[in-house]
């Protein structure tokens, strides 16, 4: 099918985009990479009256890396963030997550901020944002606010972004030295949305013992499900107690049946992938401790 008609706006600056969005209110929608919005429009699941195209705003095509964070601008494509060497050095979890987002061809056009605003419960980057205590920067014609990941994901496909607002950037905070991270998922075919996926950040002390750990799970709840699994760290900090992990995970996830997997199978995946992801993250933390860098 084809999209229904709409009126197209191509602002030449961010401030012009914000004015347009303010004028259009509920009738306006942002067009970023279009990798979610265009198929929804073609299937007539969405029919916005106006689209404001932010693809021609180079000031939003940014990846800024500092000693404390990585800030990704609204039109930075997934592929650009994935390839950015400085961003990878600062926060390896960015690339670890992005490699699981769709296929490279989709990543060439889709944006990281767009996938966060889209808030698909199966999407990887909302989970990465949650794990890294991320913040979304929202601007409107006469306001600017920052929303923490914990408040940003309101429900399935629903974020805290209001009509008239543009998410100009997302900021991911660098985990402390001695941390390790990993992202693993299982999909029917590589590149599809995952039946379940898990990101993890594990912190260690100078001896390499685990001090704290968190995971964020996808496709098993209304949004990314962030779980502090520190209580499941074993006595000497050398690993995790499987039964305790499963209990912590079961307490917070709420998987559902669909044509791709049953709820029970997703729960099983959540258990298995959580244990594997944590172990990989722990190993990386220990290796990084030895080499004196983040992993």
């Amino acid at each position, binding site marked *: 099918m*084809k999209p229904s008609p709409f*009126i197209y706006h191509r602002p030449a600056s961010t401030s012009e985009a914000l004015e347009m969005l303010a004028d259009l209110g509920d009738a306006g929608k942002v067009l970023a990479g*279009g990798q979610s919005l*265009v198929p929804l429009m073609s299937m007539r699941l969405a029919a916005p009256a106006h689209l404001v195209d932010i693809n021609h705003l180079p000031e939003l095509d940014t990846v800024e890396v500092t000693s404390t964070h990585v800030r990704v601008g609204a039109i930075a494509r997934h592929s650009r963030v994935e390839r950015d060497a400085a961003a990878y050095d600062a926060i390896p979890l960015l690339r670890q997550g992005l490699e699981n987002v769709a296929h490279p*061809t989709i990543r060439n*056009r889709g944006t990281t901020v767009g996938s966060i605003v889209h808030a698909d419960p199966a999407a990887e980057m909302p989970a990465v944002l949650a794990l890294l205590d991320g913040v979304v920067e929202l601007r409107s014609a006469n306001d600017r606010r920052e929303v923490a990941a914990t408040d940003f994901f309101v429900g399935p496909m629903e974020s805290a972004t209001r009509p008239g607002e543009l998410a100009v950037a997302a900021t991911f905070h660098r985990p402390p030295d001695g941390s390790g991270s990993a992202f693993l998922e299982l999909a029917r075919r590589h590149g599809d949305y995952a039946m379940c996926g898990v990101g993890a950040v594990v912190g260690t002390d100078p001896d390499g013992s685990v001090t704290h750990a968190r995971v964020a799970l996808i496709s098993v709840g209304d949004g990314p499900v962030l779980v502090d699994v520190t209580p499941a760290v074993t006595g000497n900090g050398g690993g995790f107690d499987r039964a305790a992990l499963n209990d912590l995970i079961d307490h917070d996830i709420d998987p559902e049946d669909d044509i791709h997997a049953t709820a029970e199978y997703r729960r099983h995946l959540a258990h298995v992938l959580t244990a594997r992801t944590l172990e990989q993250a722990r190993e990386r933390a220990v290796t990084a401790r030895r080499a004196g860098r983040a992993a």
Partner: protein
Amino acid sequence: MDTETLVHVAFTVNGTPHELEVPARRLLSDALRHDLRLTGTHVGCEHGVCGACTVLVDGAPTRSCLVFAVSLEGAAITTVEGCGNPDGGMGPVQQAFQDCHALQCGFCTPGFITTIAAYLEENEDPTEAEAREAISGNLCRCTGYQNIVAAVQRAAELRAGRTGGPGANR
């Protein structure tokens, strides 16, 4: 709406500048096929999954069914028609598909050709596993993929000027 508002957009396709007046909702795939009569680009699923419509936008493989033509102001687009040799003969990826019998009905082929052409710009000598990964976003209902994987490696040979028989250097 009887008459839809038309939007002006200018971009190049295979090096030729084009100016179009199209409805905003015109997908790039339709602009190429219907407005520019470049029917080499095929449309399968029209929602980003099959890869048949893949073209290069400023060198990067992109689903033409997932972009509006009007959003591509100033872009340089390459379709399968632009993947030939300058002398009009087949380009290395196309030649490799013939050598390796990498197509049957051919519906999926344009998307594979563009994807592989761009991939080889970044990785000139892929292993078999890398070749498989490179085409993982494109679906083919006929071939079973084996010959397409072989064609990726054959195309790499042709580009490097190793022009023995198919697979001669493997």
